[in-house]
């Protein structure tokens, strides 16, 4: 059966890259003695697929991966067993058995939302909030986006589903589909560049709140709802 698992990644473990997080979970699943299925062939690997890669340096409380299991304990037991073998900063938050024919996590991802704050070294003009909202409210935001074939012009606005300034930071809901994913840092860099506001190295602290799929009726819903 296919099982979707939700986890968070916070604190120093944010410096572990996506591929290493995958390796980490492969080993964690062995430690937790989860009855996972393996691919066939001479070097079998665990059947596991991750939803949306998280950049190095970003934190998240809405990460997902799918696994194929031969048998599954009670959901609470599965979560407990996995949490017993986690390192500080990575917590298993939820798990759910997927229905027949449900697409895998990566294929289902439609969007993700983020909260962005600034590093200490960032100095901003007093009216930055108004300017950011004005930037977002433009009818279109043409940008050059790097693709495998070179650069092409795209409308950034199409991928920004929401942008708001909250007490905790800048909130953004962005396209996270594997072909058209928009990185929150890219949105802000575009803004600051346009406004000619200089930024230091590593200016943003980016936290992913949730990863969403699009339901049949078009609404966004968390990958486990």
């Amino acid at each position: 059966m296919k099982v979707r698992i939700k986890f968070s990644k916070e604190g120093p473990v944010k410096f572990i890259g996506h591929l290493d997080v995958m390796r980490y979970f492969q080993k964690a699943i062995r430690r937790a003695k989860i009855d996972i299925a393996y691919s066939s062939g001479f070097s079998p690997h665990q059947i596991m697929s991750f939803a949306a890669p998280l950049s190095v340096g970003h934190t998240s409380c809405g990460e997902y991966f799918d696994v194929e299991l031969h048998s599954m304990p009670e959901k609470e037991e599965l979560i407990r067993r996995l949490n017993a073998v986690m390192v500080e900063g990575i917590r298993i938050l939820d798990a759910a058995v997927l229905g027949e024919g449900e697409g895998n996590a990566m294929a289902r991802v439609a969007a993700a939302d983020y909260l962005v704050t600034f590093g200490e070294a960032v100095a901003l003009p007093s009216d930055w909030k108004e300017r950011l909202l004005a930037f977002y409210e433009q009818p279109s935001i043409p940008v050059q986006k790097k693709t495998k074939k070179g650069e092409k012009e795209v409308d950034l606005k199409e991928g920004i589903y929401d942008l708001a300034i909250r007490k905790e930071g800048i909130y953004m809901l962005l396209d996270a589909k594997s072909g058209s994913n928009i990185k929150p840092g890219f949105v802000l860099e575009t803004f600051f560049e346009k406004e000619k506001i200089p930024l230091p190295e590593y200016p943003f602290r980016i936290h992913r709140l949730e990863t969403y799929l699009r339901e049949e009726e078009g609404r966004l819903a968390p990958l486990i709802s």
Partner: protein
Amino acid sequence: MRKLALKDEILMQVEKPARYIGNEVNAVMKDKSQIEIRFAMCFPDVYEIGMSHLGIQILYHMFNQFEDVWCERVYSPWVDLDAVMRREHIPLFALESQDPIKEFDFLGITLQYEMCYTNILQVLDLAEIPLLSAQRGEEDPIVIGGGPCAYNPEPVCDFFDLFYIGEGETQYRRLLDLYKECKRKKTGRKTFLEKAALIPGIYVPSLYQVFYQEDGTIQKRVPLAEGIPEIIRKELVRDVTQTFYPDKPVVPFIKVTQDRVVLEIQRGCIRGCRFCQAGQLYRPVRERDVEMLKRCAMEMLQNTGHEEISLSSLSSSDYSHLPELLDFLMENCGREKINISLPSLRIDAFSLDVMNKVQDVKKSSLTFAPEAGSQRMRNVINKGLTEEVILNGARLAFQGGWTRVKLYFMLGLPMETEEDIRAIAELCNKIAAEFYDAVPKEKRREKVQIVASTSFFIPKPFTPFQWAAQCTREEFLDKAYFTRGAIREQLNQKTIKYNWHEADVSVLEGIMARGDRRLNQVILNAYRKGCLYDAWSDFYKNDLWFSAFEECGVDPDFYTTRERRDDEIFPWDFLDCGVTKEFLLKEWHKAQEEAVTPNCRMQCSGCGAARYQTGVCLEKKEG
């Protein structure tokens, strides 16, 4: 959450920031307020190399078993972070607590290869610990050296307060207790070192003075205080079953060189190859109990989640319970989809059968280490491997479906002639011919590929070749070119690929290996000029090294190209590695006569290690 020593801005600009954050699975965290001794364990190379070392894992486990000790890890920051730390004056820190190393009681540095010596200085420097032992004060950590290169500690003796000679499991507790006592009584650093020098296996270099003769060789060494031992004997674990073994190895987040469970099945080697230092240092061979190994293997796999297990020893085929252990592993690992990797196995029907079961024959290559091409030369080095055995192994392998063979040889061995070198090429050719003979045309899935690699022979202390002259850089290169030419003359030359090791770095390694106290200033000078990560060819700066020798007035050739007299006093003679100098000298003479010495299991040759009364020395001999 733990607070990191490095700011986010720094971690985001360096390569692989996960090298510096600690927090790995099975990393040991303790409450500082409950701890009496803080020990920083260092492998002076980059994280991925250091994390792959079994010895550190064993000691880390042992120290952390002690309730009053917290042992943490530290590695050489990579060159990018090194630059940032120097610019921003960030002191080097331990991975677990992220606290500065200078606040620790001990800094233990393992010396696994000579080319890490400038990295020792980097670690001390970044930790803000004075580089020279003589300049350290009461607040500085005690800096301890250990590992195989500590068997000739003299080239780096000024940088260490003490060295631990031999296997760490035996005397560390005593050393730590002495430290606690000295700390309580506030005796000071000097008294602690003087008392430590009385513990078996502990060498305190500052308590000895060396006098030289006019020709530069050693006249004598004198202890500077009453009661300080003249000879220091290596420490050795007599029972390798009832001892510390890391049941919960640390699991790195990033890919490291040895990304698997490592099961050390035995220590030492019965073979006595005359070039091999490890084969002498770790005598006598001691096997771990097979039941202990089965239990450890399963525990470590469970506690790490690794998908591979590797057997470790100098010569796994000599482990007497190998078939039983492998059967057990194959049965238990197959179910869990765990790979078994088998380095250092002799190629024969048994090992091929095992490899066939645990590896994908199509993807794997087989490794032979004949070390020399001619039988005469293999007799000189006492490598008990005949051409017949090699060809037979290759034939069996080809029939079993393997098509790729790796061969390791050494160039520049004592008494080597052009004929011996040509024999390397001829042996490669014969192996290729064996393929065409053993595998009928219709069954040849792909072409046979033979990769021959040569390294340059470097005489090491405590080997029968410690008296031998090392080749010059030019001689090394001439031999490599000659080998390449000889291979090109072979009928099957198109299937043979040839690689050789760099010559410059082999010369420097040779200097360090048999160096004396006068090299300390050269290493310090080279480090100040910018030498670092010398083991990495991209960073090795030969020019800087040789200008350091010149500025210090030290002649590099004195250490390498000179053949030693039988009665020369070597810088390391004050250490007793268990094997006597008389035995080594006898072996040196036998090498010159091309005479072989039987292995320890066939017959005792009286090397001296029987004093330890353990392992193979207590077994009944075949003869």
